[in-house]
């Protein structure tokens, strides 16, 4: 075993091998920073080159990219408040809050260190687990994955503090949107309205970028502020972040463990995994009673950072040992290994142990190098938070929409992103937490899939008594019981104190809340009216979700009505609100203009025209800087298409 490990390491004595690994790391870091593009995007970039390289070179390159994507995508989330990838949306809570308070450097360095450690722990786990992986993976079946998914769904409730009913309402909305497309149990189309775009769902990247990214743009563009508010020194705090990561080492360890666990179980996915890590860190901190989660607690950055890299390394276990891709980018890795004649499977350990260790070393080296490089990248990128937002938006809008387009390759996705952006903004203004939406959206499919696989194969007395399932069930019952007790005790005390981060700066008048609830009622009635057309199996989940949504929406409506009465009327928009609406209306208008330009002229020319006009009119930039900026934007988009293999949408005319 040791011999194989060192002979694998000796391959890196060849400098060209390090160069290929370095190319992978560089691509991974850059793709990570681009909003919405994650591991799959990075591997897709490298795909065309794979076929001309030697197998070990290609593998080094791909592992290098996958190992660092989740190190650098944190930068975008923390600095700009726009998710660097779907799984990095977790950093919008504490990470971005820290940046707004001027602690961006601290958040980032804590994240880089944790993610490096997470990757290394994962890779050690991989090495240790290899001999015993067979029983471990076979011990975890559909019931265990189902239990884990249910736990993730419960997480949405704990993230809904302050506005529990609406938080639950929007997570049910997330479940509903997650059901659009082909049903996992009956392979029939649900809620697609005959559209080819919807047959494969609305797209995770579009959902994450819409509800968080576009919403942020709508809100900030017209405010003409920079992300960080005032000028704050970012330079300090970098060292503090490293100290944080060391101080909260138990959170690093637990986060990594959650990550590796989620990685080993194919089916849960990295977005849900990083939120699970966040949830457990929050739970542990609240037990100790010192949590500032949602308000810029470094542990809210540390745990998911450690987890996100742990997931990627943990996911190598099912990929290599069972030929079952543990994470999306590894489905691509699997195909590439097959081309090179490497058959992943139990025989890999006996026949190609060298290769396994080669992958392990690649991952380890890339994790360390990636974290170091991320420090260098983060400093200049962090300055972006001091740039006036409209200037940033001129470039961000095209990149955001182009990223969302990559998954479905269908322009209808622009509508989804725009609508979710509006919904996200309304959530922000009415204090509805948005994280539950995203978690529910990603878990909708596995929830349904593994529920049916569980009940079709096992009787309730069989699957409910499996040890892992029973433990999770007990934990959930305990958590629910505890929160009920706590709720009863603190009922009379100040119950609104525990707000999540998304407190808006303007208080929404009661009629807005009422409106949101009313839209919920209408939405779920419409959903239920469509359920009748589905097959017996395909109907169960939409029906349950629709009823749950309707109940919650009605409950929310009643609460809002009571509040309106106690506050003496529906309220009205004051001057500040009217001003804000005007501003947001203008932003929405600009987004629609952008969409129209792309529909007409395609991505490249549409974006250039948009950016020119936008920079001159909204950002009020001078002509020369505008031209330089637009030139750079065009070059960047062109580079993404030409070298990163992104597909640019084409318009009617071009």
């Amino acid at each position, binding site marked *: 075993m040791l011999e194989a490990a060192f002979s694998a390491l000796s391959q890196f004595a060849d400098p060209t091998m390090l160069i290929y690994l370095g190319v992978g790391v560089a691509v991974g870091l850059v793709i990570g920073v681009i909003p919405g593009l994650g591991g*799959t995007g990075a591997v*897709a970039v490298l*795909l*065309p080159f794979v*076929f001309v390289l030697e197998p070990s070179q290609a593998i080094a390159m791909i592992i290098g990219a996958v190992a660092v994507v989740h190190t650098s995508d944190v930068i975008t989330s923390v600095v700009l408040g726009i998710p660097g990838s779907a799984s990095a949306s977790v950093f919008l809570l504490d990470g971005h809050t820290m940046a707004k308070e001027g602690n961006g450097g601290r958040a980032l360095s804590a994240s880089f260190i944790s993610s490096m450690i997470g990757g290394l722990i994962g890779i050690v786990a991989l090495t240790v687990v290899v001999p015993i992986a067979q029983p471990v993976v*076979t*011990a975890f079946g*559909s019931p265990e994955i189902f239990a884990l998914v249910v736990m993730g769904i419960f997480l949405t409730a704990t993230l809904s503090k302050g506005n529990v009913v609406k938080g639950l309402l929007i997570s049910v909305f997330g479940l509903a949107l997650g059901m659009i497309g082909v*049903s996992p149990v*009956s*392979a029939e189309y649900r809620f697609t309205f005959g559209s*080819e775009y919807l*047959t494969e769902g609305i797209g995770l990247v579009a959902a994450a970028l819409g509800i968080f990214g576009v919403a942020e743009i709508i809100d900030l563009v017209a405010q003409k502020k920079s992300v960080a508010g005032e000028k704050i020194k970012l330079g300090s705090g970098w060292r503090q972040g490293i100290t944080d990561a060391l101080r909260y080492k138990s959170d690093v360890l637990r986060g990594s463990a959650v990550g590796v666990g989620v990685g080993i179980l*194919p*089916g849960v996915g990295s977005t849900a995994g990083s939120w699970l890590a966040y949830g457990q860190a929050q739970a542990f901190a609240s037990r100790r009673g010192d949590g500032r989660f949602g308000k810029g607690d470094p542990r809210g950055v540390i745990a998911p950072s450690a987890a996100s890299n742990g997931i990627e390394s943990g996911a190598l276990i099912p990929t290599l040992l*069972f*030929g*079952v*891709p543990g994470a999306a980018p590894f*489905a*691509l890795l699997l*195909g*590439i290994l*097959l*081309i*090179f*004649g490497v*058959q*992943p*499977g*139990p*025989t890999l350990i006996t026949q190609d142990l060298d290769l396994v260790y080669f992958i392990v070393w690649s991952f380890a080296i890339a994790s360390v190098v990636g974290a170091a490089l991320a420090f260098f990248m983060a400093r200049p990128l962090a300055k972006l938070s001091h740039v006036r937002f409209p200037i940033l938006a001129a470039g961000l809008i095209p990149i955001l929409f182009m990223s969302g387009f990559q998954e*479905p*390759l*269908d*322009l209808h996705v*622009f*509508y989804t992103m725009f609508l979710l952006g509006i919904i996200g903004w309304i959530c922000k203004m009415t204090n509805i937490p948005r994280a539950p939406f995203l978690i529910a959206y990603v878990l909708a499919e596995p929830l349904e*899939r593994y529920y049916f696989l569980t009940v*079709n*194969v*096992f009787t309730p007395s069989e699957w409910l008594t499996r040890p892992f399932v029973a433990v999770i069930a007990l934990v959930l019952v305990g958590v629910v019981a505890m929160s009920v007790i706590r709720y009863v005790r603190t009922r009379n005390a100040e119950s609104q104190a525990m707000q999540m981060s998304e407190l808006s700066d303007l208080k929404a008048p009661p009629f807005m809340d009422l409106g949101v609830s009313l839209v919920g009622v209408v939405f779920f009635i419409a959903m239920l009216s469509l359920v009748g057309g589905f*097959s*017996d*199996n*395909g109907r169960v989940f939409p029906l349950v979700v629709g009823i749950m949504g309707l109940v919650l929406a009605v409950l929310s409506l009643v609460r809002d009505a009571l509040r309106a009465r106690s506050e003496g009327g529906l309220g009205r928009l004051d001057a500040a609100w*009217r001003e804000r*609406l*005007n501003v947001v*209306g*203008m932003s929405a*208008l600009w987004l*629609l203009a952008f*969409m*129209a330009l792309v*529909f007409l002229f395609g991505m490249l020319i549409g974006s250039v025209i948009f950016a020119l006009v936008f920079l001159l009119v909204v950002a009020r930039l001078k002509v020369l800087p505008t031209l330089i900026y637009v030139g750079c934007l065009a070059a960047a988009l062109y580079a993404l298409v030409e070298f990163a293999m992104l*597909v640019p949408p*084409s*318009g*009617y005319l071009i």
Partner: protein
Amino acid sequence: MKRELSRRGVLALAGLAGLTACAPAQTRYQPSGEGIIDVVVPYSSGGGTDTWARFITAELASRQEGVDRYQIDNVPGGESITGTNAYVSADVTDGRQLLVSSATTYFQNMLGHHTAQFDFAEMEPLVFNGTGAVLWTGESAGVRDVYDLLERAERVKYGGMSASGLDAVALLALETLGIKVDGVFGFEGRGPTRLAVQRNETDLDFQTTATYLSQVQPLVDDGRAFPLMSVGILEGDRVVRDPALPDVPTVDELLEEINPQGREGIAHQAYQSFVTPGFFFQKGLWSNAGTETAVIDAYDDLVAEMNSDEEFLEESKSALGGYDLISGKDVRGEFRTALELDPEVLEFTRAFLTDEHGAVLD
């Protein structure tokens, strides 16, 4: 003034909303240029069919004069229908644009998917690559071969992805032999169905030969798994045992032994119609109906050249699953016969998949 602005704003909003009411389709054919052959792959990049396409086109390009490379154009969506429809509607017949297709797309064609605008029975296959497949079982059912399965009173559980996909072939094979199973559908892929048998969650699983040999054979050697039957390979118009699996009987062999009259039965006809595009000619490089003969002949020659190239055969073993390339020109007849389902057989298959296995067909 504020009012004024907002009213104008609302008007502009309405106008722009109108302008953006229809998104342009992304499927227009744009030739990549001299020396480049465009290939529509109606699946996402990195999947099995996409990897096959990238491998095979790189090999083809290196042997074709005047062709620098093939440009892979992934058009996912609509479960491969979007891309295939787009290819057919561009109607390029001079070989400058080709299509890569796979079993599930043929099945949509055969089972009559309402949005499918293509008909593979009219299009021109250029290159095929088939694969064998094995139905195997774990320890849980206490079954070691098909005869045990026939004697077993209780139904066993078959784990699959969806009854209207490749699993249909296994289900029809079992039906032909008179074996009733409970299908458990909804697994995410062939990896999870395999693990489910290893965990004793389900009893039967269906794998391609290449995966079977690498993942299941070690279990078989340990006495923890048992092969039941294979689909065999096509030799001329006869099905024979897969040379990679000399000890595993084919479905046709078993039928001959167990129920010789069954050969004429409707279930067997249905099985034959689906196994041919499903496995014998699973992946293919296609061109539109009415393609120039020169193009078809060129690929026919290329396949012959590649099949006699020892070095290529050695290199491609893993990527092609250990099976030779087949010239589309040679087997066009067989493929079309399989695809032209007798209405009665189609009716039977649809009823079998929907009633027995809960498939939803439109």
